[in-house]
């Protein structure tokens, strides 16, 4: 079997009120983004606990993207600001563990920002591609490319 190019596996935690909707909008307006992201809908990024990020990396995710509402625009007032602080904490912890902190990133979009969300995903995939596979991932770098409508 010939090993294909490295295709990052990225877990994207998307807030129901913004990023998840904008991903939906990207789909309905035919805006393309790489199929490397596995989107998990969350009620608010403020619901994301430190251990969720840790588990994602432990299970072999090459990167984790947290997509929340624009600052000041959180449906629950300040959930996205809590998430920002938590993401920063985990980024420092990743460095302690020996992983690049760039593997975890938070972005802010509104429900109407399908293009910026796609651009953020493209940029994240690019960053992870440059960093290479997570040392915690499965041994085989070959991962079949999927298609997204």
């Amino acid at each position, binding site marked *: 079997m010939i090993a294909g190019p490295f295709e990052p596996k990225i877990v994207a935690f998307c807030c129901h009120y913004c990023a998840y909707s904008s991903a939906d909008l990207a789909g309905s307006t035919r805006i393309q983004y790489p199929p490397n992201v596995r989107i998990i809908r969350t009620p608010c990024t403020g619901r994301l*606990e*430190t*251990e969720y990020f*840790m*588990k994602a*990396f*432990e299970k072999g995710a090459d990167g984790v993207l947290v997509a929340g509402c624009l600052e000041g625009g959180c449906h629950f007032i300040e959930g996205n600001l809590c998430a920002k602080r938590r993401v920063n904490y985990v980024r420092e*912890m990743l460095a*302690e*563990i*020996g*992983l690049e902190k760039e593997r975890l990133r938070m972005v802010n979009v509104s429900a109407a920002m399908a293009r910026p969300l796609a651009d953020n995903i493209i940029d994240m995939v690019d960053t992870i591609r440059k960093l290479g596979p997570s*040392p*915690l991932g499965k041994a085989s770098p070959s991962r079949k490319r999927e298609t997204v409508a």
Partner: protein
Amino acid sequence: MIVAQRKTIPEIMEIVKRHDKILVLGCGTCVTVCLAGGEREVIIIASALRMASRIAGHPLRVEELTIERQCDNVFIEKAAEAIGRNDAVLSLGCGAGVQAIAERYPEKPVYAGLDTAFIGVLEERGVWAEKCAACGSCVLSQYGGICPITRCAKRLLNGPCGGSREDRCEVRADRQCAWQLIYQRLRGIGQVDRLREIVPPRNWSSNLDGGYRMILREDHRI
């Protein structure tokens, strides 16, 4: 409550590097409340150790358990099986918890995963402050409930020192002057006259003398 904070992952890795199987043992009391060694922190630190050890090429098997209280034999018993299954214990309890576990299991290496810091309170979300030095001879009644031994940088009993600026300590400008607080508090409760009493030098034998302290209560002994 006792307030602690976690050691860094490289520090912990260095501590446990001679073992293959460790138990990360949390405590459900003080360190849970100060978000340093409770059930959630056990999950986070165990996960971090698993990842760090895999990256370092020496994968650790890490088991997770949290008991109600590590400083109490009744609860320590509940960890017996898990402790038996592992090569060593990384305790996320305070210093008392770590030592209680170590005393109970003499053949098992027990390590501290936290740095125990002080007896304090939660001031606001994510901010803890020291309030008590456990000096063994409480003077709070003289000072309106504000401890000069803990909260005055110079531990003055006949303050203030004269160096404070507004209500800020001259030693650390981000801290409040304890004597300012004492004065305000005593004025608020109508007891400023207490400050006219000159307090003699303190007898530190209740704290820094004669080894570790013990309390014996004959009425409770069997």
